[in-house]
């Protein structure tokens, strides 16, 4: 049986489409989706979803989520992570390798991939480590990980400090068509820091992380990328100057892409005034002008993607004084509603935003995205843009609650998520 999604506003950046259409997804292995004029497909023999008044988007692609399995299943596992992802309209998730043990060899890549497949929800893609054990000392088994299915390389929340090693990583990864994702933050400038080095950190008595810690790291990595000609992806850009660095590098032809974490698009450091540990993020929330520059970078395409940077932490890591808490916030379910807030505020138009949530991140993965990010792949997200919902213990599907938006009402709700032509999420009572 195939699936017919009728009469929704279909936004598909891959084809430049934005209009009311029917979408027909064949429920076969290829799961190709066809876009048709509204009402032109007879509903017989199809499972029908009425999307009148709703938006039909390609399934979202998230470049960065910490899914914690193996090793920290008390925070999240691949099933709960994938469950939260599809409830958030995300159909492709790149799992970060900072697990215990870290994903630094083919066997663990294979484990994560199979567990993801078995869950049968979102497509779990695997980021392999750049360096063995994420220790920054020697290269991880990059070839082996690629053969096992790794789609990108990343050392999680650690920067490869050794410039020589980073150079070799870029060179070697390019032999396998892999992009190197960098968590650009020089620890010698950020050490002990807890919040953006600005008035709020001064006021709260928290050691600052200056944005220059990010900018010096990006500068080095851009220089290495330009020198080696290899592909670099800068994860969660957070400062205005960093956006500008990447803008210039792109103009010069450096093969660089970057993403912004969703919380940096909607929050600034001023929110920290109550020492809410769910706002302890890495990189830290920065100032209003940084947020403005991030949005501008997203609009003009300097920033290719919005990532959730989903980082579940349990009460053991978060119910602590701010300086003892671990960084990170969960975001899989909030990613789309938070982004839609930017559309409502007229900071970005819907098609551009959708591109940064689908085609943009898929482009970072290149061929390894397996066609994700376009409607034609048969991954769909159907969202009711006006529906409001409370982010609360009952509605959160992650194992953790570390979100600054817990208790807040969000606007824009995923009604249905389709992966490879199969409905994997349908809102209760929808």
């Amino acid at each position, binding site marked *: 049986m195939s699936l017919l999604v009728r009469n929704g506003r279909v936004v598909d950046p891959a084809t430049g489409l934005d209009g009311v259409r029917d979408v027909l997804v064949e429920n076969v292995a290829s799961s190709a989706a066809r876009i048709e004029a509204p009402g032109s497909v007879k509903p017989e023999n199809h499972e029908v979803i009425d999307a009148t008044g709703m938006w039909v988007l390609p399934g979202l692609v998230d470049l960065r989520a910490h899914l914690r399995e193996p090793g920290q299943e008390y925070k999240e596992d691949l099933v709960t992570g994938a469950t939260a992802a599809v409830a958030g309209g995300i159909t492709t998730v790149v799992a970060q390798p900072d697990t215990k043990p870290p994903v630094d060899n083919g066997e663990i890549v294979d484990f994560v991939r199979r567990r993801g497949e078995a869950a049968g929800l979102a497509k779990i893609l695997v980021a392999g480590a750049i360096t063995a054990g994420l220790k920054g000392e020697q290269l991880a088994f990059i070839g082996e990980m690629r053969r096992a299915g790794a789609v990108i390389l990343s050392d999680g929340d650690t920067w490869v400090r050794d410039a020589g090693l980073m150079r070799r990583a870029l060179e070697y990864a390019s032999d396998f068509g892999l992009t190197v994702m960098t968590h650009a933050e020089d620890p010698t400038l950020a050490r002990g820091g807890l919040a953006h*080095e*600005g*008035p709020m*950190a*001064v*006021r*709260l*008595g*928290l*050691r*600052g992380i200056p944005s220059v810690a990010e900018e010096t790291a990006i500068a080095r990595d851009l220089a290495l990328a330009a020198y080696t000609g290899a592909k670099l992806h800068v994860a969660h850009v957070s400062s205005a100057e960093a956006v500008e660095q990447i803008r210039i590098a792109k103009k010069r032809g450096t093969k660089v892409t970057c993403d912004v974490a969703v919380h940096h698009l909607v929050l600034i450091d001023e929110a920290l005034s*109550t*020492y809410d540990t769910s706002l302890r993020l890495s990189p830290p929330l920065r100032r209003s002008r940084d947020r403005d520059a991030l949005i501008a970078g997203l609009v003009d395409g300097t920033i290719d993607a919005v990532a959730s940077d989903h980082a579940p932490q349990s009460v*053991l890591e978060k*119910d*602590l*004084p*701010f*300086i*003892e808490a671990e960084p990170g916030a969960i975001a899989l379910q909030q990613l789309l509603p938070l982004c839609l807030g930017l559309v409502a505020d007229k900071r970005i138009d819907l098609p551009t935003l959708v591109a940064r949530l689908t085609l943009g991140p898929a482009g970072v993965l290149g061929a390894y995205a397996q066609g994700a990010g376009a409607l034609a792949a048969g991954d769909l997200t159907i969202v009711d843009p006006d529906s409001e919902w409370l982010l609360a213990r009952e509605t959160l599907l992650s194992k953790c609650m570390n979100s600054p938006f817990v208790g807040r009402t969000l606007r824009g709700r995923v009604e249905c998520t389709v992966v490879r032509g199969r409905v994997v999420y349908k809102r209760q009572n929808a």
Partner: protein
Amino acid sequence: MIAGKHLLGMRGMSASTIHHILDAAEGFRGISRRTIKKVPSLRGRTVLSVFYEASTRTRVSFELATKRLSADSVNIASSGSSAEKGETLLDTAKNLDAMQCDAIILRHSASGAPHYIADRVAARVINAGDGQHEHPTQSLLDLLTMRQCFGKLEGLEVAICGDIAHSRVARSNLIALKEVGARVRVAGPRTLVPAELAETYGCEVLPSIAQAVDGAHVVMALRLQKERMTAGLLPSLREYAIEFGINARVLARARPEAILMHPGPVNRGVELSSDVVDGPRSVILDQVENGVAVRAAVLYLVLGGEAA
């Protein structure tokens, strides 16, 4: 009104509240000087002092204040963070609460720790210094000392000198002094003065200690922690003393009636030369005496309401 509330910091405290607390503190100064240094105001109340950081004068000062009010005081001293001891601060807080105490006086190395505790206990929490954030009772005793010396706070020129970046005393005073209408200038090595200080507090940041002291009513030096050297923020104590220390020559630039303050303990020969510590302008011991009165006033005002 601070009755029944936590005292977490000077932020948000109005000038009139500050003056009311100082007025009450004046009332307590007389009690310290009589033979029976005790009033029955808080008889039967229990006050827990929980100090996760070494402190002599603040702890003793709070303990004396508690005893002067006839409350029962229990001291818990603990070095290192709660986490190091294998107990989370949350568990500590819940345990303290289970002991049915009326107030918890908390000193902790983590900025925001008292706020964290305050959200999780029934007792009133009084911040006795949290990390690099705030030290409200120190600020109140500083203001009391200034008010006694000049009869007012409004219009005073106050120079705060030294390690501003790591100082909770500086932060509380920057907030409180602005609120009561004093003007603050700060100076110190650039590695110890946050770039955003002026923007954050509306104070004036001057390029040298001498310029900050120039014409000031109040010169407040801050303690320089020795670990600033190992953190690479300063080359040596000796160099600090020469370039940023306050001696008689520097102090002479202040007003003739100027006072010298320091939250203690003083590193003699580092941030202050020994002669100015003991000199005629020094009110450092008055600060200590006022500390007991201010803390008694705070405890009385927080716990003494009839609803409590």
